[in-house]
């Protein structure tokens, strides 16, 4: 029997999975992405470098800073300029706050896919405190458009350090509760342990990135491997699990939130005083050339390749987003699992259709 899961189905995002089942076992799964394609790359060719900022973060609004970060770095590379030191730390804080909100979103949807409605409500509620925190810096709740080439748009207020400290303390207590009620729940173990196993070799062969890759035992994190901004000055661990199943992916997301909070705390301590933005002309005209920048967004390595011909607009902009890299693993992992495990496996990869469709 062939089932069309999505695009209007509570278990899919804005995309479709054509699933062939034999009884309760999935024989074949064909992903059918592209429902929310918006032509970001083409749009970028007819807008100047500053106008590109707002629309580039739209594909992934729950990780808006993460998707914008490499663009800003690449444009700075083209211009041959770099951001002031304080701006670098503020960018890191914003990126880590967004990582936490994105991972909380992941946790809550993972919860509802397992039928655990409390785990849907709690992270969604706690996500709000981090949104408030990023609102203090970015000015809006989710789509900040806060990073600009040469720094950030606005500085963090003085009260930020204090509030961030309080929020992190509160959230560490909450994480323990999450662990108790959800991650260590025997029924959750039963549903996720050994489900959708992606071995280390296959993960490397398929080119999976981000938390899914780390859950398969590959210690790969762009922040550690190719440090950008001030990531070489902060101390953090890269959580790695060797099992490669849905549970390991859940744990990686869980542990990364702790590491992100530690990074935020270190950033606040190390942050120097000073300007947050370099003076640049309003109409950026980078010299002809090309630039490539890669960062670690919430869902994995996010890379931009920009070619400039010396004009106002980018000649070509190529986005390499993490979700699209992970899409290839979906048909591979879904083969042979129970239909009931489909949401766990699918969402465990943290696939975000809007981001993948660009």
């Amino acid at each position: 029997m062939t089932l069309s899961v999505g695009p209007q189905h509570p278990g899919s995002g804005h995309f479709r999975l054509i699933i062939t089942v034999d009884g309760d076992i999935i024989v074949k799964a064909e992903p059918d992405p592209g429902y929310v394609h918006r032509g970001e790359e083409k749009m970028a060719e007819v807008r100047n470098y500053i106008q590109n900022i707002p629309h580039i973060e739209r594909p992934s609004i729950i990780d808006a800073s993460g998707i914008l970060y490499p663009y800003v770095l690449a444009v700075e590379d083209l211009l041959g300029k770099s951001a002031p030191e304080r701006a670098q730390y503020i960018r890191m804080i914003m990126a880590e706050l967004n990582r936490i909100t994105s991972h909380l979103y992941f946790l809550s949807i993972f919860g509802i896919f397992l039928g655990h409605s409390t785990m849907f409500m709690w992270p969604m509620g706690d996500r709000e405190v981090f949104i408030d925190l990023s609102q203090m810096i970015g000015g809006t709740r989710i789509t900040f458009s806060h990073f600009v080439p040469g720094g950030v748009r606005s500085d963090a207020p003085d009260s930020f350090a204090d509030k961030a400290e309080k929020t992190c303390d509160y959230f560490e207590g909450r994480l323990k509760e999450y662990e108790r009620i959800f991650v260590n729940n025997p029924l959750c173990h039963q549903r996720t342990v050994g489900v959708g196993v992606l071995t280390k070799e296959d993960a490397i062969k398929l080119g999976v990135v981000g938390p899914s890759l780390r859950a398969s035992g590959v210690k790969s994190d762009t922040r550690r491997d190719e440090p950008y901004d001030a990531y070489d000055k902060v101390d953090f661990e890269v959580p790695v699990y060797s099992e490669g199943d849905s549970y390991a992916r859940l744990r990686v997301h869980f542990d990364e939130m702790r590491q992100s909070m530690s990074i935020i705390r270190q950033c606040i301590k190390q942050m120097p005083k000073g300007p947050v933005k370099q003076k640049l002309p309003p109409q950026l005209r980078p010299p002809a050339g090309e630039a490539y920048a890669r960062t670690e967004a919430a869902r994995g390595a996010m890379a931009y390749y920009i070619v400039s011909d010396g004009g106002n607009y980018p000649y070509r902009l190529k986005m390499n987003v993490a979700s699209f890299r992970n899409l290839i693993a979906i048909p591979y992992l879904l083969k042979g699992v129970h239909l009931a495990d489909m949401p766990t496996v699918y969402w465990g990869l943290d696939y975000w259709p809007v981001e993948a469709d660009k």
Partner: protein
Amino acid sequence: MPIENFEDFIKRVLEIVFWVLVFSPLVIFPLIFIVLPSMMGLIGIMIPGPIGVNDILAALADPLKSIPIMTEFMKTDFFKIAVFPGFTWAALIATGAILIERKLLAKMQLRVGPLYAGKFEGVLQPIADLLKLIAKEIIIPRRADKLAFWCIPFAAMAVGGALLAIVPVSKQWVVTNLDVGLVVAFAIMSFFPIIALVAGWASNSKYPFLGGLRALHQMVSYEIPLLLSALGVAVLAGSLNLVKIVETQSSIPFLLVQPLGAIVFFIALMAELERIPFDLPEAEPELVAGWMTEMSGMLFGVTQLAVYVKFYALAGLFTTLYLGGWYGPQILPPEMAEANAVIWFTVKTLAVMVLMMVPRGTMTRIRIDLMLKAGWGRLLFLAFVNIFIAIVVVQLGIVPR
């Protein structure tokens, strides 16, 4: 539905007549039986017993004289079926349970839940939901089996209501006091999987069909531990009569003698009722809404009400078998012993219902193969062990028979 021609008009009228027919057993009949006796003499002809037409005419002038007439009414079978231990009472408790569930779940999840309907904590939310569902258009899939599709909600309601007839609320308030009440309860319960399967099949859609199949698997495999664990109670009480089973528990509820059986019965009951963690037939991310996916408007409303009526009836069965039914400390004056019994039964049943709602906030959904393994492998074994425990208890003579 806009009325454009005569045909539409007739359809509209028929629709209204249809809903009146549906709700008359729930609302109008109880009203007739409580309000009209004091106003209309003709009804008096239907009343058996010593009350004549003259008494009813006198009651028209003096409301106080209507009290004995109403007491006579309350002894009729129709009153029992339609109003008190039967439909209206169960529907009231079921809608109350929906509200309690929503509020309880909201409190567990740090939300507020229904808040605005009614002055206090959204108490009128069920009524608002009912009005919304009545106002909604009923959409039937084009290729659905229309007759079966229309029958499902009412069949579900009928089966849920049939269970009400044998669960004793108190010694006096029981619709039918059967000698084989326990067997009849399980006989009625075996209709549930058929209804779910027919609902899935009649929708002629893939998700409802998968949901119906899952419901069939789940209910059939959990019915056996359910029956076997209840057998322990039958051994202890030496009877299949539910009233007698309760009377045996006057000194000690069977929960204390049969804790293992009670646990097995409780878990199997959760599976039978499709409640989380066993709500596989309605698993949202996989099967949308299971066998109820294509239901809309009031068809969905009636089905949902039937599910909750069934919930109340089976929780009542648990109270009857393990918690000592209507027995409890006398909190009202001795002349109101009946009311006391009814209150204790209701409180115990609601407590069982709330206990069944709590896992919805704390547990994840279980997978079908793991669930069947647990049902056939563990619960069945425990249920057998429980029967031997019951036999040992009877031989030791702990429970008076």
